C-alpha cells in the first residue's frame, strides 16, 4: 500500500494562540481514517489545515508537515491549492444547506466542478453529472438535476454535496461530520454509500466525527483528539479493544450500547478546557482518573503499542 496523506507534528496558530499541536497520522490508499473528538478538540481545524483553508479564519501552519501524494502542502501557493481543492481532494461538509447555492439548480452546481477541474464542456459535464447522480443511488437523476436545493430532503441534499466532492474524480475525500445533521436511518444510508464509494473507486477518506459508533462502523484507523492535540492513534480494533489513553477509554465508556444489562454510563468529570486555558503537562490530567504528579508537569510522549500509540505516561502499563 502507498501513503496518500501523511500529517506530521502539525501545529496551527491563530493570532497568539496555538489551538492545534502534535497531530500526526498517515493514511494509505483505500483506507478510511477517523478523526474523533468532542467540540474544541481540533478535528475540524486539522481538516482546514489539510485543505489550506486556515487563512479564512486568520490561522496559519506554524510547524510540521502535510504531505499529500508525495508533495508537501504547507508551502503550496493559493492558486495551486485552488486546483487541489475540489480537484484531487474532495470536501464533504456537515451542513448541506450552507454548501449548496439556494439559487442554482443542483445539477449545474455539480457541473461547474467538472468544468473547472477537468475542463469538460457544458454538455459533457452535464452527462457526467447525471451519471454520477445515478451512481449515488439518486432516483431519476435526469429530473433531480433540474431541482433547486430547497426541493430536496436533507439526505438527498447531502448526496448532492457528495456528488460535488466526487465530480472531479478526487483521490482523497475529507468528510467533516457528514451525517451529524441527518436522521439515523438516513445516516445509515449515507455511511453505506460512502463505504461503497471508497471500495468501488479505491478512494481514501478522512472522516471527522464526534461519534465513536460511526468510527466503529466505517473506519480502518482512528486518531482520537482532545483539547487541540492527538492523544491516541491506532487501528480501529486496537482503539476499541485495547484503548491505552484514559481519555479514549472514558470516551468509549460514555456511549450507551443499547444492550440489555448494559453497564452504567460513566461521564467524564469537568469540561474540555478552552484554547486560552490549556493545562500544563497532559491536557487531560485535570479530568483524568489516573493522573499523578508527573501528568501536571510533563507533557507525555507517544508510547507505541502493537497497533498504535498513546500520549500518556502510563500507556505502557498493564490495565
Amino acid at each position, binding site marked *: 500500500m502507498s501513503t496518500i496523506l501523511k500529517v506530521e507534528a502539525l501545529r496551527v496558530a491563530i493570532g497568539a494562540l496555538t489551538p492545534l499541536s502534535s497531530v500526526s497520522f498517515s493514511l494509505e490508499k483505500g483506507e478510511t481514517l477517523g478523526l474523533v473528538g468532542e467540540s474544541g478538540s481540533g478535528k475540524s481545524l486539522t481538516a482546514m489545515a489539510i485543505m489550506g483553508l486556515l487563512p479564512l479564519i486568520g490561522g496559519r501552519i506554524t510547524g510540521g508537515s502535510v504531505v499529500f501524494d508525495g508533495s508537501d502542502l504547507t508551502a503550496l501557493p493559493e492558486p495551486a491549492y485552488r486546483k487541489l481543492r475540489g480537484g484531487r481532494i474532495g470536501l464533504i461538509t456537515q451542513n448541506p444547506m450552507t454548501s449548496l447555492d439556494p439559487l442554482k439548480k443542483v445539477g449545474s452546481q455539480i457541473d461547474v466542478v467538472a468544468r473547472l477541474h477537468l475542463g469538460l464542456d457544458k454538455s459533457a459535464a452535464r452527462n457526467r453529472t447525471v451519471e454520477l447522480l445515478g451512481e449515488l443511488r439518486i432516483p431519476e437523476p435526469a429530473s433531480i438535476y433540474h431541482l433547486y436545493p430547497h426541493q430536496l430532503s436533507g439526505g438527498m441534499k447531502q448526496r448532492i454535496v457528495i456528488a460535488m466532492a466526487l465530480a472531479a474524480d478526487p483521490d482523497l475525500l475529507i468528510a467533516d461530520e457528514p451525517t451529524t445533521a441527518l436522521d439515523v436511518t438516513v445516516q*445509515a444510508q449515507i455511511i453505506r454509500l460512502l463505504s461503497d464509494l471508497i471500495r468501488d473507486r479505491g478512494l481514501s477518506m478522512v472522516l471527522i466525527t464526534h461519534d465513536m459508533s460511526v468510527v466503529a462502523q466505517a473506519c480502518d484507523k482512528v486518531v482520537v483528539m482532545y483539547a487541540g492535540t492527538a492523544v491516541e492513534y491506532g487501528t480501529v480494533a486496537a482503539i476499541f479493544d485495547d484503548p491505552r489513553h484514559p481519555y479514549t477509554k472514558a470516551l468509549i465508556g460514555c*456511549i450507551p450500547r443499547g444492550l440489555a444489562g448494559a453497564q452504567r454510563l460513566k461521564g467524564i468529570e469537568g469540561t474540555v478546557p478552552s484554547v486560552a486555558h490549556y493545562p500544563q503537562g497532559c491536557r487531560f490530567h485535570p479530568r483524568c482518573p489516573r493522573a499523578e504528579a508527573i501528568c501536571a508537569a510533563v507533557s507525555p510522549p507517544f508510547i507505541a503499542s502493537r497497533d498504535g500509540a498513546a500520549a500518556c505516561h502510563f500507556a505502557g502499563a498493564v490495565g
Partner: protein
Amino acid sequence: MSEFLEVSRLSKRYTSKRGLFGAARSMYAVNDVSFRMTKGRVVGVVGESGCGKSTLARLILRLIEPSSGAVRFDGLDLLKQRPREMRRLRARMQMVFQDPYSAIDPRYTVADAVMEPFQIQGVRLSSAARSDMISGLLTMVGLNPQTASSYPHQLSGGQKQRIGIARALALKPALLVLDEPTASLDVSIQAQIVGLLERLQEEMGLTYLFISHDLALVKYFCDEVLVMYLGRVVEALPNTDAPARHPYTRTLLDSTFQPDPKLRRRIQPLAGEVPSPFDLGPGCAFAARCPRASERCRVETPLLAASGGGHAVACHHPD
C-alpha cells in the same frame, strides 16, 4: 400501581393555507396517540425528526392545546382545568428543554433562574430560606453553590443543562418531561447528565417521559419505549429487551451503529426518507418504505393493537 398519566386518543392537527388559489392543507403532528404511565417509571418516546415526539411532550403539559383527545394526570382531566388550576398543576409536572442556551433568560443569574418557578407560583420565601433553597438545588444537580451569582453566558452547556434540571425540580414535581435533554451536548457531558437524571429519579421517585431520537440512549435509560412515526405510535415496547415487531422499529435498530467494530453492520438501506406529513393518503404511513408492505397496508391504517405482555404494535404484518 396507580395510573399516573393517561393519554387517550390525543391528536394535534395543523392547517396551512397554500397561497392565493391553493387549497388549505392539513397535517397531524400527533395522530390518535394513547398510552398510560405508571408512577416511578421511565417511558421513552423515540422517533426521527417530524415524528411528533416534541409536540406530544408539549401537548401533555398543555403548553399547546390538542385538537382532540384527553390527558389525565393523577386522576384530573387536564383539558378541563382553568388557567389558574393549570398553573398550580404545572408545579407537579415540569419540562426540561433540549437547548439549555435558549431555555434560560440571559439576563437572569443562576439564582434567579432556579427561583423563577417560585415566583411564578407566587411562593414567597425569606431571604435565608431562599439562599438555602438555591444552594440545596445547585448541590442536588452537582453544581457548586457559588455558581448562583453567575450568568448563563459564563457557564458551559452541561452546566446550563444542570440549571435547567434544577429549575424543573425546584417545586418537587412528580412528573418530568425531558425533551432531548442531552442532544446538544458532547458525549462526555451527555453521560454526566444521564447519570444525574438516573440518580435523581432513584432518590426522588420521579416519573420521566424521555423524548429522544437516540434509540441506544432510550434503550439504556428507559423502562418502556414508545416508537413514533409521522405522528402515530407504531410500537409500544413494555421493556427494552422485548424484541421489536414493527418493521420501522427494526429499521431504527438496524440503523443504529454500535461502538464496537466487531459489531459492524451490513447496512441494508431503507428506501427513501420520511414523506411529507401533508401528503399522507390512507393506509400505513410507513408502507411506501416498508419491505413487508402489502396491498392492505396501502388502504387500511393499522391501529395499535395489544399483542400480549404489554407489547402493542400497529402493523398488519408484524414480526
